[in-house]
């Protein structure tokens, strides 16, 4: 069955890839990506995107149960690859027929057309594109039917090389202070990596993969199997220790900019931990979470600002509990009117709260107190024993401490009575109440504790920036935080971290896609939810029945 040729499928896959390519071209992404080198002088991101379409179409055609034969695979690849070229060719020909099309489709520029027609004239280029894509389609199909022993190392070699090239910014920032300028220039271009580095990575990745499959995997597994219970515990303890130490020295390795990015991610983790309590644990869909973030930030700003609006001129540490406390108070107060609302009613009302806070912050009404559009300036920085925290690395430790606290509180509460009450509430509010759970206090605790972390994040945010403006507190923040906890895996604490890294960290590192960042973000949200609706790191089921006995023993031993 599987070796049979399914031409209709090939055509469908090819056309689909072609339409996607057309879309990417028409919105200007291709042209913009073409200015980004991956491997200097050899490959741009635009070329990679353009040429991977037919390749994957060809690959996809042969994707069935088991391997295809060479003949049918090649034919399928040709069809899929050639059809991938059809929509872009249509676009090229359209510009011939309607030269004014650019008045409507602004990104269909001569540069794009020249890129698509591979530098040749329109008609010749179209044919050229057709041929190249057909060949790439075949290549994709052939790649799929390669024996695993060859294909796997190739995949890992290419994958590592391209991944490294796309994220060259990260390694660039880490390596810049370590390597000299000469070495840096040998390895990195201004955008992307040099062919030399690409070759090194490619060869190394292939070498490692082969070594691993031939030798290493076995050795690792046999050693793992030979370990005793105590050794496993020991090694777990060691890896936790290593984890903590690497968290502590992380900013030193990363350098200023990446630490700044990690700080941003950290603030979102902090907010995510809080919202995870409200949405993930207690099931209360809150779309206005930014409100408490704003409240924390503004309270901190007003209390510590040295400028005209500052009252109290407090120190950061004195203002911090007040800011968090105000956020909690706001969380509880705003929680009361929505106690009886459920699901989507709750969602829209909380969204409204978030908007109300934002509009009020901008308004002329409160301008005399919180600065309106002009914001609050000269917010104080935290000091420890006379040392002023100014750099990203200083805030890294502050945020790390905050996240640590949040993880501690969230995990303790999750495993306790309150956590069970929240989860019961999430599963079935009526039955939860019928079990004797006091809905009001349980819900308000969720709102209050959730708001506390958001307020804490806001307070740190405000001290970190030294100035705040209402623009920072928009709906997008709420949406971002909600998305990251769901993408990470709702209710899961490691999920929050993973979600924040993917949805906050990654876009930050891919700032060169700036114009298309939100487009890719949207596509990423959809793709991730379809691929893994349960999230990237779903929360595991807590083992209690048998674990309980152990705990008891431990307790008994301690007493």
């Amino acid at each position, binding site marked *: 069955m599987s070796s049979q040729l399914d031409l209709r499928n090939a055509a469908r896959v090819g056309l689909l890839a072609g339409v996607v390519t057309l879309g990417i071209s028409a919105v200007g992404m291709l042209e913009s990506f073409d200015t980004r080198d991956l491997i200097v002088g050899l490959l741009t991101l635009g070329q990679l995107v353009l040429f991977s379409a037919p390749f994957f179409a060809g690959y996809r055609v042969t994707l069935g149960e088991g391997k295809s034969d060479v003949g049918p695979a090649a034919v399928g690849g040709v069809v899929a690859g050639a059809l991938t070229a059809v929509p872009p060719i249509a676009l090229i020909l359209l510009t011939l027929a309607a030269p004014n099309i650019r008045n409507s489709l602004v990104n269909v520029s001569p540069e794009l057309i020249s890129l698509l027609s591979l530098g040749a004239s329109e008609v010749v280029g179209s044919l050229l594109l057709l041929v190249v894509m057909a060949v790439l389609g075949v290549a994709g199909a052939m790649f799929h039917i390669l024996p695993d022993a060859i294909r796997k190392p190739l995949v890992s070699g290419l994958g590592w090389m391209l991944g490294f090239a796309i994220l060259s910014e990260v390694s660039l920032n880490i390596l810049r202070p370590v390597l000299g300028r000469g070495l840096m220039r040998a390895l990195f271009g201004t955008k992307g990596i040099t062919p030399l580095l690409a070759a090194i990575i490619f060869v190394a990745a292939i070498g490692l993969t082969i070594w691993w499959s031939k030798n290493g995997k076995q050795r690792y597994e046999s050693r793992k199997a030979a370990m005793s219970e105590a050794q496993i515990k020991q090694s777990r303890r060691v890896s936790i220790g290593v984890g903590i130490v690497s968290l502590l020295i992380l900013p030193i390795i990363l350098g200023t900019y990446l630490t700044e990015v990690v700080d941003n991610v950290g603030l979102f983790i902090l907010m995510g931990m809080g919202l995870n309590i409200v949405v993930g644990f207690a099931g209360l869909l809150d779309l206005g979470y930014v409100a408490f973030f704003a409240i924390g930030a503004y309270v901190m700003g007003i209390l510590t600002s040295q400028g005209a609006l500052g009252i109290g001129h407090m120190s950061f540490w004195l203002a911090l509990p007040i800011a968090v406390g105000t956020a909690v108070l706001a969380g509880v107060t705003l929680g009361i009117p929505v106690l009886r609302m459920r699901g989507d009613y709750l969602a829209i009302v909380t969204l409204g709260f978030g908007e109300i806070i934002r509009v009020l912050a901008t308004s002329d009404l409160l301008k005399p107190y919180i600065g309106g559009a002009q914001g609050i300036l000269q917010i104080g920085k935290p000091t420890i024993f006379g040392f002023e925290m100014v750099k990203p690395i200083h805030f890294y430790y502050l945020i790390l401490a905050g996240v640590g606290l949040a993880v501690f509180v969230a995990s303790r509460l999750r495993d306790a009575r*309150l956590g069970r009450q929240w989860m019961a509430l999430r*599963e079935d509010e009526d039955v939860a109440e*019928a*079990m*004797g759970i006091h809905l009001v206090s349980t819900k308000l605790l969720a709102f209050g504790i959730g708001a506390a972390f958001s307020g804490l994040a806001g307070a740190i945010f405000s001290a970190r920036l030294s100035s705040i403006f209402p623009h920072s507190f928009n709906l997008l923040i709420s949406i971002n935080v909600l998305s990251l906890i769901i993408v990470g895996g709702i209710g899961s604490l490691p999920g929050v971290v993973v979600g924040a890294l993917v949805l906050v960290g990654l876009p930050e590192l891919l700032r060169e896609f700036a114009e298309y960042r939100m487009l890719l973000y949207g596509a990423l949200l959809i793709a991730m939810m379809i691929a893994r609706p349960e999230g990237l790191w779903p929360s595991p089921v807590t083992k*209690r029945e048998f674990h309980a006995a152990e705990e008891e023993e431990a307790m008994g031993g301690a007493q």
Partner: protein
Amino acid sequence: MALLEATNVTKQFGGLTAVNDFTFTVEKGAIDSIIGPNGAGKTTFFNCITGFYQFEEGAIVFDGHSVNGRSTDQITRMGISRTYQNIRLFSQMTTIENILVGMEPQLHTSWIGALFRLPPTVKEETKALNEARRLLDFVGLTGKGDDLSRNLSYGDQRRLEIARALAAKPKLLLLDEPTAGMNPRESAETTEFIRRLRDELGITILLIEHDMRVVMGISENITVLDYGAKIAEGGPSDIQSNPRVIEAYLGRGAAASATIEIES
């Protein structure tokens, strides 16, 4: 002594009277049943007892205290537990977590204690876990404590729901069709199990049931509802021979289709 006394309870939905001037008592230590055709108002009456619905008229007194106007959680804490016609477990939580939630009325320590693992909290939690495992054994779910409750078999889910209700240490247990969807053998086991609850734990039991074999087998007193009103009351033999009951059940086919199912 009467544990539960309902007098002239009336519950209306819009123009529809679901429970009509219903007076009813359950003696302490009894196993009583309420039967009646679909839509007769049985589950509605349960919902009135447990505070899910507020009723317009009448009074319900439990163990000397009025339940009128009390919220569901307060009523549960007074000592009334229930199960549901369509099983309503916390499906994303494990079996043992479901039981632990049921134990709510027994637990008193606050979240602050949990945060710092203060000794009273740890002690209470350990006790609760042990109690939960005991209940797990009692209902025959040993070894399934860490399964998500939605992954349990239907019969196990029914048993878990009862275990969850028992966890609250109720004085009165309301069972809404505990044998629905079971085969005769399972029904018989459940019947035996219900009897054990009363005999071993001393819990008073009130059940809604359609399976006449179960009802007649264990009930000491049976009340028949039709269109929200009581049409008969008495021991199994009295009910079996009561002409009004027979009429209500025989006419059911025609009646049920015209009645709107309120209890869904």
